[in-house]
């Protein structure tokens, strides 16, 4: 089956948005939205379904195998990774593609996610001493280190907004890792900032629960981070 990629475009952050449709013929069963976008941009002349010449579609990618978070975008209403979104898994021929809505648009599907990294800095997320990692917490530290900072969890969060006081789920994995590796009484600054910027603003909607493209158990990390930072309880597993 041929697909129509219906892309919400904006050539600059302050320009007007418009939609443009492109026809894509898959080559293999494994073709993803990332494959399709690459192919469109490799065309000698890119034209939309009306035959109107079009500028290449700006988007970001890097690993092409779900490991770096670069290619997050909204596909048929759901934030996900373009390199993991296989065309054959879409039932409709026309696929709606939009940039993540929570972040400022740079161009087309590229958004500026620098706030994710700024927030981690504001939260003082680093080890202030040598890590102490007993075997029983290794699995938790491992899972907490898997976050790729793609921003999908923030996209669906009813409470997160860029430059808001609440930093959202994407700050939780790093917090969990660090608290797992430091005695709680030596991580007072992290705990305090976490309570202010994460715990306090989280409405526990758990909208982020099933959205993580890495399959991170966000609820588990959240429960652990809360236990350690707010309730000063022992770490879970």
């Amino acid at each position, binding site marked *: 089956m041929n697909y129509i990629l219906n892309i919400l475009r904006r050539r600059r952050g302050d320009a007007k948005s418009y939609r443009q449709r492109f026809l894509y013929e898959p080559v293999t069963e494994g073709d993803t939205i990332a494959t399709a976008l690459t192919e469109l941009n490799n065309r000698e002349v890119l034209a939309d379904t009306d035959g109107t010449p079009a500028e290449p579609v700006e988007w970001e990618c890097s690993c092409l195998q779900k490991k*770096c978070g670069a290619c997050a975008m909204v596909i048929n209403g759901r934030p996900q990774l373009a390199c993991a979104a296989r065309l054959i898994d879409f039932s409709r021929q026309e696929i709606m593609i939009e940039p993540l809505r929570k972040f400022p648009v740079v161009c087309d599907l590229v958004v500026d996610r620098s706030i994710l990294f700024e927030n981690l800095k504001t939260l003082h997320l680093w080890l202030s001493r040598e890590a102490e990692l007993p075997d029983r917490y290794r699995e938790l530290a491992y899972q907490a280190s898997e976050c790729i900072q793609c921003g999908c969890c923030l996209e669906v969060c009813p409470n997160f907004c860029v430059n808001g006081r609440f930093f959202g789920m994407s700050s939780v994995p790093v917090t969990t890792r660090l608290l797992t590796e430091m005695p709680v009484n030596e991580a007072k600054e992290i705990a305090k900032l976490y309570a202010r910027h994460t715990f306090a603003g989280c409405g526990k909607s758990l909208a982020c629960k099933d959205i993580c493209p890495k399959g991170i158990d966000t609820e588990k990390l959240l429960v652990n981070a809360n236990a350690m930072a707010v309730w000063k309880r022992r770490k879970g597993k």
Partner: protein
Amino acid sequence: MSDMKTVNIIGAGLAGLSAAITLARAGVSSNLISSQPSERAQSVLAEGGINASLNTMGEHDTTTEHFADTMKGGCFLSSERAVGGLTENAPSIVKELAALGVPFNAQNGRLLLRNFGGQKKKRTAHAKSSTGKMIMSALIDEARKYEAQGLIRRFPNHELICIDVHDNVLANVTVRDNYSRKYLRFTGAAILCTGGLNGFFEGMTTGTTQNTGSAAAIAFCAGAEFANLEFIQYHPTTVSISGKRMLISEAARGEGGRLFIMRNGKPWYFMEEKYPELGNLMPRDVVSREMTAVVSMPECTGSVMLDLTGLSADVWSGKLSDLRAEIMSYMNIDPKLSPIPVSPGIHYFMGGIRVNIRHETSVKNLYAAGEAACQYHGANRLGGNSMLGAIYGGKVAALSALETAAKASIDSVNAKAESSLPKNRTKLCCILSSGLGMIRSEQPLIKAVADLDELLKSGTLNEIDRSRTLLGKAMLLSALARKESRGAHTRSDYPHTSADFQKTTVAGMHNGEVIIRFAAIDESEGSPK
């Protein structure tokens, strides 16, 4: 701009982060420039592990043996002094990573090591099969500490577009903010940590699309010498997925995976039969060549298969759960139940910017580290040595750079740089792959050089594509000049290794021409000669 000594680092993977952290700990600030944030660098893809003779598995491993295996695996084309430094420092590097909280597989605080190719003893520290991601997460957190102190200044989404060299001394580097489209010029010393040359073989490598190789091409045309460009590692166990090759980590064989092919209707475990000692864990160049040979035998059918069905439940749950999930997701095969078809794919570039043991390039004040540089791995890199080389090399480069580091400035400049065009990249890739497959010979190489010359004369190339094409030509000419087979460079017309070629292939630009020469393996601490 403060009065602080500053070094510019281009590339924020393992090598760049290691350099930035080393500088920060010495009180020297850095501008950490990268086309995307660290979280998206190729280093997060590294899977199987990092080598260090920690000797935690009761096998009496030593740094001497790590040194010997690395030299032998690299077919004696590496600097002994450099490899000595790498292997001596490996245990402390891995211990430091553990102290930064990398959740390596461990038991009662003892780091567990696994077998990896080309090494008889268990030496590879790992965090399941996501070691690169785990190390990167810890180093990113560590770097953040210094970002908050103003010692590391990040410039993500910034791409290198020009290196200015006067009288063989680096003057400045110019980068473009790909978000605002504005240009910045950085004066002062610079360390290139821009990763491997994946972009020269688009869609054919296991690495990231971000490592376009354009930074290397810019450095080459600015006057930096390159070394051993003909050595391109084909990893034996890769599979084709949409848009790239996906790696099946060597960890799969390290944990007991076996390669076979159907011969006269029966599985033939050819590696185990031919190499009883290391079997499936021979160095990658050997395994890839053997696979290519058996596939073309008339008595064999189908592709080579990687059989992981014999691995224990513990291995699957504790060590390779992530690899299994990946194979199931992209190949629709459960490797616990069925063997998977694999074939060699481009995975690593041993060649790169030529550096001495202090990681100085041939251009004064310009340094290089990580996969961008040619150091440690000779004609064939051992699995697990690359992350080590990137971290150690980043450190060494930083320590060298800080000796001469001075106050630096950042200025907005008016510049305009064109991007590489897809049609030019595709042409270059087609020509290069016609000459630089796993098995090379003179005629296809000569033809490929002629094709590139035609492309260079065609007048269709913009400046960056021209630089890329010249570096591509240097790769082909290096392969043509090395009239022997060694490690990852196999010539069907020169099938033997020759002592005359136990030298470094050096490629440089002179008066607009690519010139290749051979030099003694550089053991010096001064500029590479």
